């Protein structure tokens, strides 16, 4: 089954990092991606641009309306995602627990249809 791992964290923590710290996190993600590829579970993923670039198309009574900003303004923002294919939730959680660069924040694990 395919799962998406949605990475939520405080964007300001990320943007206030020194470039060395950022490089360390990126190195972590490279290694993580390689490990996923090696385990043949990697199906895709990407970092997202900051939430300030987000646009939402909201629907009301079937009519779309474009507005600036994400779905919801929250303390933690969606910063990136991975799509993996594994046997079950337990294995998906195993990968989520290994997410690099996490100090605070959340990795949401959702099965794909």
């Amino acid at each position, binding site marked *: *089954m395919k799962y998406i791992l949605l990475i939520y964290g405080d964007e300001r923590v990320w943007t206030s990092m020194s470039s060395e710290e950022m490089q360390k996190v990126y190195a972590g993600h490279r290694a993580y991606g390689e490990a996923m590829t090696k385990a043949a579970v990697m199906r895709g993923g990407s970092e997202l641009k900051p939430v300030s670039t987000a646009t939402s198309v909201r629907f009301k009574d079937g009519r779309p309306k474009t507005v600036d900003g994400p779905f919801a303004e929250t303390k933690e923002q969606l910063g990136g995602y991975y799509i993996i294919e594994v*046997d*079950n*939730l*337990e294995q998906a*959680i195993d990968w989520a627990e290994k997410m690099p660069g996490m100090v605070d924040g959340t990795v949401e*694990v*959702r*099965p794909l249809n």
Partner: protein
Amino acid sequence: MLLGRIVEEVVRNDGRRVLAGLIRLTGDFDRAEDALQEAYARALASWRRDGVPEHPGAWLNTVARRIAIDRMRRDRTVDLPDDLEAPALIGAEGLDNPYDPPDDDPSGIEDDRLRLLFVCCHPALAPDARWTLALRTLGGLTTREIARAFVEPEATTAQRLVRAKKKIREARIPFDVPSREKLPDRIDAVLSVLYVIFNEGYASTDAPSLVRPDLVREAIRLARLAVELLPASAEARGLLALMLLTDARRAARLTSGGELVPLDEQDRSLWDRAQIEEGTRVLDEALGLAAPGPYQTQAAIAALHGAAADATETDWPQIAVLYRALLAWTPTPIVELNAAVALGLATNLQSALDWIAQIEARGELARYHWLPAAKADVLRRLGRDQEAIVAYREALALVSNPAEQRYLQKRLASLIESSAVNRDVGATLTPTV
């Protein structure tokens, strides 16, 4: 009717084991339950006609599995592995000779129940879904019984079960025993589910009687199951010991009128001595595994109370030490409150008051009625009646359980009465002094 009672017995003794195997076979709680229901119906019809088989549980297992496999074939929603063709299971003899013992080896069945225990207590499920599912599938309680136990509409319980099963199915929570590195955490999760069930039964927040014996009995049954399935877990034994030792005092805990009787005033001849002995024995087994933990520590405290012939013989110094240890395991303000009271009774009461004042100052237990109640009790023992009266009133303003409320009111009333007597005595004496 007799047959109905026999089927009921089989349901109680074997139904849950069969269900665990069916869930593994079908990979789905609802399919498994449907197959089991159908098997019960067939059992009633067939046993009425042909008599009850020698091994009714085995009969039920074989028939239920056959029903489940037939339905999976018919629905074609699942790829059936080839080994399901095993003749012992669904071959011609399977039904013609229902007296055969099950083809499963017993240890396989136990494994399925262990898997089920871990699935029901999986951290990906909401906490209230965990104990509901455990009571339903492992405890064998009906939705109505669970709803009654937790004092909620049956529809709420039913809805929670539907959501939990849906999450298990759609997110694919595996029907499996956790990996070795996750096992300790998952065992903790299992035990905490059983502990919640027990506590809800023993110190119910809403029950007018304060105790729900059905939940207590279920929790102990499930704890026995956990010990049986996790023989190497010291804490599983610790939890079973804690439940046995605590529940052994049940008969002395309430008066016939439903009044709460505090530990130091209980009639100890009403304590269930056999159960205290069993609890102490289980605790000794747990301690023998040399892996201490919070349940064992609480059980040890309960065992010390159980060993005291009367309240004055309670080994408070030892209990105070154990509460200190418990506080290190579970640093919650409620444990701290108990540690404070134990320290006071072990050394001097003022030290308890000082500690309670610290907890109070942090404001963590501002809504918890046992904090002012504990303070009132210590003040009463110190003879500071007026302050005790104020504290009892604070506790009464916060309490919600009717039995606890009656207890606090009674304490308050007797204190007001005795201090009024003292005042009268003082008043008559004053002029002569």
